[in-house]
C-alpha cells in the first residue's frame, strides 16, 4: 500500500516545476503554454488521488470535464498566439506587453 502523501508529493513537485517553467521562459510563449499543460496534469493527478482516497467516483468525473475544458482552452490559446504572431512577428513574451499601464 502506497500512502497517499507520496502521491501528493509527486503532484506538488509537478506543480512547482510547471510554475517555475512559467518564470523561466521569457523567450517563447509556447513553452509557457506547455508548462501550463503540465500544471493541468498535476491538478488532474490531485483530483484522481483524492477521488480514490474518498472512494468517490466524482474525482474522476471532474477530471473528465477538466480535460474537456483544457482541450477547448488550448485550441483558443493557440489560435490567439497564431494571430499574435501574424501581427507582431515575434513570440517573445517581452514583446507582447502592450497592455501595460
Amino acid at each position: 500500500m502506497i500512502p497517499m502523501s507520496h502521491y501528493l508529493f509527486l503532484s506538488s513537485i509537478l506543480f512547482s516545476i510547471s510554475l517555475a517553467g512559467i518564470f523561466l521562459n521569457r523567450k517563447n510563449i509556447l513553452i509557457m503554454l506547455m508548462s501550463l499543460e503540465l500544471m493541468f496534469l498535476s491538478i488532474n493527478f490531485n483530483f484522481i488521488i483524492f477521488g480514490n482516497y474518498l472512494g468517490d467516483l466524482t474525482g474522476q468525473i471532474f477530471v473528465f470535464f477538466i480535460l474537456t475544458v483544457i482541450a477547448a482552452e488550448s485550441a483558443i490559446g493557440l489560435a490567439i498566439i497564431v494571430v499574435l504572431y501574424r501581427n507582431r512577428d515575434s513570440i517573445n513574451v517581452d514583446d507582447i506587453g502592450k497592455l501595460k499601464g
Partner: protein
Amino acid sequence: MMYFLVTTIIFAPLLGSLILLFKNDKSNLSTAIIANISIGISMILSLFLLISYLFTPTVIETFTLFKWFSSNKFTFEFALLVDSLSVVMSFIVTFISFFIHIYSIGYMEKEISFNRFFVYTNFFTFSMLLIVFSNNFLQLFIGWELVGLSSYLLIGFWYEKISAVNANLKAFIVNRIGDIGLLLGVILIFISTKSLDYNNLFISLPSLSEKNIVILNYSFEIIPLIALLLFIGAAAKSAQIPLHFWLPDSMEGPTPISALIHAATMVTAGIFMIARLSPLYDESEYVLDLILIIGASTAFFMGLVALVQNDIKRIIAYSTISQLGYMTVALGASYYSFAIYHLLTHAFFKALLFLCAGSIILKCHHEQDIMKMGGLRKIMPYTFFTYLIAGISLIGVPFTSGFYSKDLIIDIFKYNENNFIYYFLVAGVFVTALYTSKIFFKVFFGNNKLKIKENEELEHKDVILMPLIALAIPSMFIGLALFDSMLFSNYFASSTSDFNRINSFYNNHIINVFNFTMHAFTSLSFFALVIGIIVSYLIYYKETNLTKILDNKLSSIKKILENEYGFISLSNNYVPCYFKKIANILWIKSDINIIDNLIVNGIANQVKKISTRMRLIQTGYIYHYAFTMIIGLMLFLLVFFNF
C-alpha cells in the same frame, strides 16, 4: 356676513393686482378703472366696518380662512382677527390708498409702465391689509415681507436710474436687517409658548414673566428679550434711529408712492405691531424706556436735519421720520391708543403734504429744489390752500386734527413729570413749525423764479385736484370728530391694554375736549409753535439780515446736520466697504484658494498622482502577473497552515 366683508376687503386689491398683471390691452383707462374699483370696494367696506365698530367697539372676531399646513407640534392656519384696532388701520390704509390711486391716474399718465405701477400699488395694499388683519406671527411676517417687497419694487420703479436702484436696495436691506430681529423674536415666542398666535402669547404672559433663557452662557429674561427683538424689526420698518437712513433715499420713487408707503401706511406697520402687542410691552419696563429714548431722539434730531434740506420731498421725508418718533414716544410711555390716534391723523395730513408736493413738482416741470421755486400762490390756488391746511395740521395749530393727536402725546409727558422728554418734544414742535413754513414761504411766495405761466384753466386735471380736496377735509376735522368716540369711549379697550391709563388721564387732565383745546392755548407747545412761525417768517419770507447772521454763526452745526450726523457716510461708505472687504477675503482666500484649489482640485491632483504611480504595477508581462498570483497563493497557504 362680516366674514365676507373682511375677506373682500383683503382680497379685492389682490384680485385687482392679478387682473392688471395678466390683462392684455394696453389702454390706460382700463388699468385705471380696474385698479380704482378694487381699492374703492375695499375702502367702502372698511368705512362701513369702521362706522359699525364705532358703535360696538368691543367686538372681537376671528375667522379662519384655511389651514396652510399642520404637523405634529404646530398648525398654521390663515386667519383674520377683526377688532377695533385692525378696523381703524384698515380704514386708514384703504382710504388713503384709494385717493392716491385716483391721484396717480393723473400723475403717472405719461408713464410707459402705467400698468406696472398699479399692479404694485394694489399688491402693496393687499400686503398691508394682510399685516393688519393677521392674528398670528407667521401671517404678520408674511405680510411684513410682502410690504417690504412692494416698497422695493415701487422705490425702484424707474429702474433705469442708478440712484433709484441704490435707494431701493438700501431700503430692502435695512428692512432685512430689522427682519432678523423680528424673526428672532418670533422664534423665541415659538420656543416659549409653542404656538404663534397672539392670543396664546397674551395668555401665557403671566407664566413667562420671571423665566430666563440661556443663550451662549448668558442668561436673559425672556419677555424683555422678545420685546426688544420685535422692536428692532419695528424700528427698521418705521424708520427710527439707527435704522432710519433708508427713508430719505426712498424719495427716489414716484411721489404718490412716497405718499402712500412712506408717509401713511408702510412705515406705520411697526407702530401698529407694537400697539397690537401692547400686553407684551406692558410687561417689559426696560424695553419701553429704550423705545422712549429712541422715539424722542428721532423726533427731535430728524426734525433738525429737515431744516437744512432743500429738496421738497426730502424735507417732508425727514418730517415723516420725526412724526414717527412722536408715535414711538407715545408707545414708549404705554399710551398705545394715543400713538394709533396720531397715526390716523398723521396719515391724512402727511399724505396730503406729499400729494401737494407732487402737484408742485408737476407744475414746475419736475424741479424739486425749493430754493429755485417761488411765487406759485396765484398760479396754483388749490394746492396753496390744501398745503396750508396740511401744514397747519402738521404743526399742530389748535382745532386741527394734528393738534389733537400731537398735543395729547406732548401732554403725557407734561403731566407725568418727564421733563427731559417734554422739552425735547416741544423743541420738536418748534422745528416742525420752522421747516413746514419754510416750504410754505419759499414755494408759494416770493418771485416767480421758474417763470411758470399762469393758466386760465384749472392748474391740474380733476383727478389730481380731487384727492387733494378729499384728503384735506379729514386733515382738518377728523381729529376733533373722533376725539371722544375713539379715544375715550372704550374704543380701544379690547385691543390695547392702556384702557385704565387713558381713562385716568382723561379724568385728571383732559376733562372734556373743549377744556383741552382752550387749555392748549396756554401751553408751552403752542408758544413754541408761534415762535417757530414767526422765526420762519423772518428768515424765509422777509429775508432780512437775520438769515445771513444765522448762516454764518451756525455754519458748523449746519454741516453736521447736512451730513445727517454721519449716518450718510456710515451707511454709504463705511459699513458697505467693511462688508465688501470681508466678502473679498471670503471670496478669494476661502472660496478660490481653500475650497477650489486645495480641496476640490487638490483631491483631483492627488488622485492623479496616486494613479500615475499605481498604474505602473501593470507591466504587461505575464510572468509578473503570475508571480503576483503565486505570492498570494503562498501567503494563503501560510495563513491556513497548521504546523
